[in-house]
């Protein structure tokens, strides 16, 4: 169906966002001798192999011991290093929350927590591994920067941007092969939302893999005469409230879209901003208080309504609420 749509962004290649992290880390290592990598027995899954190979002395395998990894990383900052930790998103957050809270966030340590296989799209492994609460947990922590890029190029750019950013950060990416629709030479500005498509009737705020679904949804809405604005919220925290309010002041209603629980994620952040400054109808696309399950990424995104079709549906509801 995508093919017949007149998309404002297109792609010629698909790649996993985790590879954007792996390639970004390698480049970061070349640019800055203080960058070190730590991994908890998932070098292949995190695509950290190239960094390990080129900088064996700056790479630390810690074994299946995620809490220890966060502690070691925080300690390395005391020694002046810029540690990037790598494991799955579930083990990067919930597993080690207290280590992050005390030793990284509260202590304001320059640790980059890099988390792969986030959300439903990891597929077969099922609910244990499909974390849908990580953005919420991380954005609740004072001092923490939370980034959820949308494709390979943006993930690579975000990884590089984190080297120069001083302070605790959470970088979330995923496993499936995904359209590469943003430019390779983009400048990644932490905390600055990116208006990808101009529109006037409804705003779609999307993050991570769902930015692509938002791009598709915009074309579908346009076919029905609805003009949607698409804003890529790659940084969940600090949230670009100015961009959000500017857009909704114009469109008057919005949809949020994320591969995450409705509780605590992007939608909640936007709701908080709107309710305090400019109350307007907001519809949510996300997982509604449920754990995941096995399946292919497409099947799971469809079942939980995390796709373009559902964004379109929610946009129409938002529009009706605005006019009604």
């Amino acid at each position, binding site marked *: 169906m995508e093919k017949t749509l007149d998309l404002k962004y297109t792609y010629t290649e698909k790649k996993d966002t985790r590879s954007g992290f792996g390639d970004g880390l390698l480049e970061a290592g070349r640019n800055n001798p203080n960058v070190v990598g730590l991994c908890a027995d998932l070098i*292949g899954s995190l695509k950290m192999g190239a960094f390990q190979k080129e900088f064996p002395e700056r790479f630390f395998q*810690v074994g*299946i011991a995620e809490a220890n990894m966060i502690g070691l990383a925080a300690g390395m900052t005391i020694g002046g290093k810029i540690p990037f930790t790598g494991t799955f998103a579930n083990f990067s957050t919930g597993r080690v929350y207290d280590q992050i809270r005390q030793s990284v966030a509260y202590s304001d340590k320059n640790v980059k927590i890099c988390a792969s296989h986030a959300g439903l799209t990891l597929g*077969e492994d*099922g609910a244990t591994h499909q974390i849908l609460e990580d953005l919420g947990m991380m954005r609740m922590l004072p001092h923490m920067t939370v980034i959820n890029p949308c494709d390979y190029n943006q993930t690579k750019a975000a990884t590089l941007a984190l080297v120069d950013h001083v302070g605790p950060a959470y970088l979330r990416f995923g496993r499936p092969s995904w359209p590469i629709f943003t430019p390779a030479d983009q400048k990644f500005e932490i905390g600055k939302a990116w208006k990808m498509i101009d529109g006037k009737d409804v705003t779609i705020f999307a993050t991570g893999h769902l930015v692509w679904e938002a791009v598709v949804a915009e074309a579908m809405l346009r076919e029905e005469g609805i003009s949607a604005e698409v804003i890529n919220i790659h940084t969940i925290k600090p949230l670009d409230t100015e961009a959000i309010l500017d857009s909704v002041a114009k469109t008057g209603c919005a949809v949020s879209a994320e591969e995450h629980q409705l509780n605590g994620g992007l939608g909640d952040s936007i709701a908080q901003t709107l309710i305090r400054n400019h109350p307007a109808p907001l519809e949510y696309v996300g997982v509604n208080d449920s754990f995941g399950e*096995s399946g292919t990424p497409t099947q799971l995104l469809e079942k939980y309504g995390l796709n373009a079709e559902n964004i379109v549906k929610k946009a129409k509801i938002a529009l009706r609420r605005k006019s009604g």
Partner: protein
Amino acid sequence: MTEIELKLKSLEYRKKILRYIKMASAGHTGGSLSCTDILNVLYNRIMNVNPQNFKNNERDRYIQSKGHSVEALYVVLADQGFFPEAELETLCKYKSHFIGHPTRKVPGVEQNTGALGHGLALSVGTALAAKLDNLHFKVFTLLGDGELAEGSNWEALLAASHYKLDNLVVILDYNKLQITGPNAEVMNLEPVIPKFESFGCSVRQVDGNDLKELENNLLDVPFEKGKPNVIIAQTVKGKGVSYMENTLKWHHGVPNDQDYKLAIEELNNQISQLQKPQLHEK
């Protein structure tokens, strides 16, 4: 069941593990094959647990901490009659409750696992509950060697020996490999026996792919009154299929048609080898 029949069961289990991994196009192959014999002995010789008594609080408990080896568990549970084996054709598929890590939606599974480093604490808690009610069931848990790097295991062991839980049986599937490489390269675990001993456990070392040795030692529980039991089961990751044995890539490899054919042939050969001497004995 004769010893030969029990050995045949292990081989049949291995074939089924590969069959369902192939159908699912996903799975943790090496670790499931390494612990097949352990599960075989536990469910067919040692534990008092079956579909009829599964609601009975006196049943023995099995908690698989290395949850990723789910295929071995599901295959053995199907064989025990917890559910029809054909249901495993949906393993890891959309809308199936046979999710890629153990889930209580599947009859016979005590606990959802999959994040490593949880099973031992759960087992210690279960063993404590048994002591509290003066019940005589035992709690068995299976750990991976890579998994032992999780500090939670060692916290749980402190409690297990503090509370003198001789009704707890910790089995280490000691295949020496994890995802990225050998334990020795990823995070050294040795010397492992003195570690467990210094935590107050009674430790035995066995060939974890030898059914008789496993059975004899498991029948000996408790090894010492008032001490948690630890069995270091020396196993081979990928056991039973020569090209998978001790090979990193088969941690979660899915056999292609050619691989699969070869593996089944090898296992069938082992089956016919076993069946031959049996005829002479009679």
